[in-house]
């Protein structure tokens, strides 16, 4: 299969290329100029041709939560959002703590031939925070990292040993920084808004205290740690210093947290019930800046489809999370534009940077790289409605918003898997 993408604005953050031109794909890879006649020509005039997006956190809800979403529906959502690779956290039911489960999930995903799936294995058995999983074996069956997802790990002895063990096999560990005890019972950022609404709060220092612990343990063990969903200005500051000190740490920020803050909860909008909680406007601005200056490495959707029953509840009882795969591009563009960034710099946060963290060859348009490409119209605005979302989760605070950035073609391994 040979593909010729003609006359688009080719933007490759990894190389800095940003020019109108052609892109050739052959045998599942980015190719040199014409090696014979193309099987298909895609006219990309006026469109952006970029590496396929890489999302470090997308819940597909299988196994166990098929009533919220299925692998099929969410893989459709992924490619509709231009996402060609995604990492899925282990908080399924049962959690991804056994090679058999990981195998099955990868096989199911492969059979769907849509986005590439990179499972993140459970760090502890059943995510209970007590016993280590067989990380080495899970890595052999395809786990790219190990994590507790949003499950708490309160026991610092276990965390220490888990990092030592992972470091032994050079396996990356992805962690949310949130102190179990300080966050207990909380549902919103502990501040003026939570006080007004009478919602139990989670203080920002629940993040910094946990982050301080994680960074000390990284220092002690040499484990490669990626911090997921940073949420506070103080957390950003700790990460900045850790990176300056040369610690092997990276971090990401969720798409909602660079645009929204606790004020957006309004009159108890349960779509704004997220983990970590939306914090103050100052925190939100610090996160957006951290992503500009590189303190935060990448932006992820933290895609979490929740059914209507899970959201039609009083705020504190509602299930946390928002659908995000199809919002990754529009919300990244919105952040990039508000920050005055060049398109390549914006796209780096959802292509080359997450590729670096995942240690994969995609996320770039270099010759020989996997032919994962997304072609989109950056100016095309569309009103976000439940019907316009392919994801089974319609839960997003952005319903009704007019958002720019529409995916036209999604190509994985040289095959067009989505077009609109």
């Amino acid at each position, binding site marked *: 299969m040979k593909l010729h993408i003609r006359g688009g604005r080719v933007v490759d953050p990894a190389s800095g290329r940003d020019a109108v031109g052609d892109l050739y794909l052959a045998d599942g890879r980015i190719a040199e100029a014409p090696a014979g006649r193309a099987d298909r020509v895609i006219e990309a005039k006026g469109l952006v041709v970029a590496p396929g997006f890489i999302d470090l956190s997308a819940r597909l809800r299988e196994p166990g939560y098929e009533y919220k979403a299925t692998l099929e529906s969410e893989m459709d959502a992924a490619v509709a959002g231009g996402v060609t690779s995604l990492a899925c956290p282990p908080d399924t039911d049962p959690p991804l703590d056994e090679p058999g489960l990981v195998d099955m999930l990868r096989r199911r995903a492969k059979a769907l031939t849509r986005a590439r799936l990179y499972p993140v294995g459970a760090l502890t058995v059943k995510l209970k925070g007590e016993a280590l999983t067989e990380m080495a074996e899970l890595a052999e069956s395809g786990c790219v990292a190990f994590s507790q997802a949003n499950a708490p790990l309160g026991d610092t002895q276990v965390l220490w040993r888990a990092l030592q063990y992972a470091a032994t096999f050079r396996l990356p560990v992805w962690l949310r920084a949130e102190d179990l005890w300080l966050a207990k019972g909380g549902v919103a950022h*502990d*501040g*003026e808004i*939570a*006080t*007004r*609404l*009478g*919602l*139990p*709060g989670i*203080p920002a220092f629940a993040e910094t205290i946990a982050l301080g612990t994680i960074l000390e343990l990284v220092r002690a063990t040499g484990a490669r740690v990626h911090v997921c969903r940073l949420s506070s200005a103080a957390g950003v500051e700790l990460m900045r210093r850790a990176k300056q000190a040369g610690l092997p740490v990276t971090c990401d920020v969720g798409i909602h947290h660079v645009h929204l803050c606790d*004020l957006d909860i*309004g*009159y*108890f*909008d*349960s779509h704004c019930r997220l983990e970590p909680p939306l914090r103050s406007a100052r925190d939100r601005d610090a996160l957006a800046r951290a992503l500009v200056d590189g303190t935060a490495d990448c932006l992820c959707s933290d895609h979490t489809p929740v059914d209507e*029953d899970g959201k*039609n*509840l*009083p*705020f*504190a*009882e509602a299930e946390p999370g928002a659908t995000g795969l199809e919002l990754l591009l529009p919300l990244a563009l919105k952040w990039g534009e508000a920050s005055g960034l060049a398109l390549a710099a914006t796209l780096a946060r959802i292509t080359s940077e997450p590729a670096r963290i995942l240690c994969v060859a995609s996320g770039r348009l270099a010759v020989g790289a996997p032919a994962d490409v997304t072609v989109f119209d950056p100016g095309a605005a569309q009103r976000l409605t439940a019907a316009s979302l392919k994801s089974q989760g319609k839960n997003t605070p952005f319903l009704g918003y007019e958002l720019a950035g529409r995916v036209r073609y999604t190509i994985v391994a040289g095959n067009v898997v989505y077009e609109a």
Partner: protein
Amino acid sequence: MQRNPQLNANGELQHLLSIEGLPREVLTRILDTAESFAGVTEREVKTVPLLRGKSVFNLFFEPSTRTRTTFEIAAKRLSADVINLNIALSSQTKGESLLDTVANLSAMHADIFVVRHGSSGAPYLIARHVKPHEHVINAGDGRHAHPTQGLLDLFTIRHYRKDFSRLTAAIVGDVLHSRVARSLIHGLTTLGAPEVRVIGPQTLMPAGVESLGVRVFHDMRAGLKDCDVVVMLRLQNERMGGPLLPSAQEFFKHYGLTAEKLALARPDAIVMHPGPMNRGVEIDSTVADGPHSVILPQVTFGIAVRMAVMSMIAGN
């Protein structure tokens, strides 16, 4: 941000969910209307036909005696039919969702839902889902709001003090968990009270409470100085011996209202309490039963205030 969900497009009260966001004129009108009903409760024939033919559903997901009863009396005096549902003992325990419960009651032709729920914001959720002719009155949601209590507190203060513009009021105790405190604070600041104080240990103060427009005192004696109004909050016994407070004795010593501490307030200060009281924990019996106490009149006024709210929202 969405329109304030308790007002309709004409700025009229559609639901009563919180005092916050209600304009001063609306609050004053509720208090004035309550004043006119206060007379009704003194009459031989205590009913008026304003809600004749309407059904009021008391939907209490948390136990309550005083609030539920006064709502019931208020509705009956307005000639409404009152249906009391003790949800804690029925459908919720069978796993029915909050909105399903409401939809079922709605099918039985409700006009007003009086809702108490343990989760902040629950009445907002219900208000978003009821039919246009149905009204929701918040009778206490989590730590968020208890607007009719706040209104009856304002009514009581106005009754004894007339003028809010020179008032110093202190709210004492467990502000962190108190929907009563939040509602009263919003009411007092909206009506122009120049100084609203909250008094208690740091563990019972919510984050950034100053942003509500109050002054925080940790020393009760300093906080009570020259107050016109002292509102004592109920302190639940479950809070004792945990991470928030060591013991009832120590709390009472520092934050319990005694005659000796009350002497620091103005000589004509009034003492209020939303009930139920824990004598010897937050308030001494000599004060609760003493000449400054207006705790029982508060209960009586509560009926008039709830009549006012229901008639303004759904009156014929």
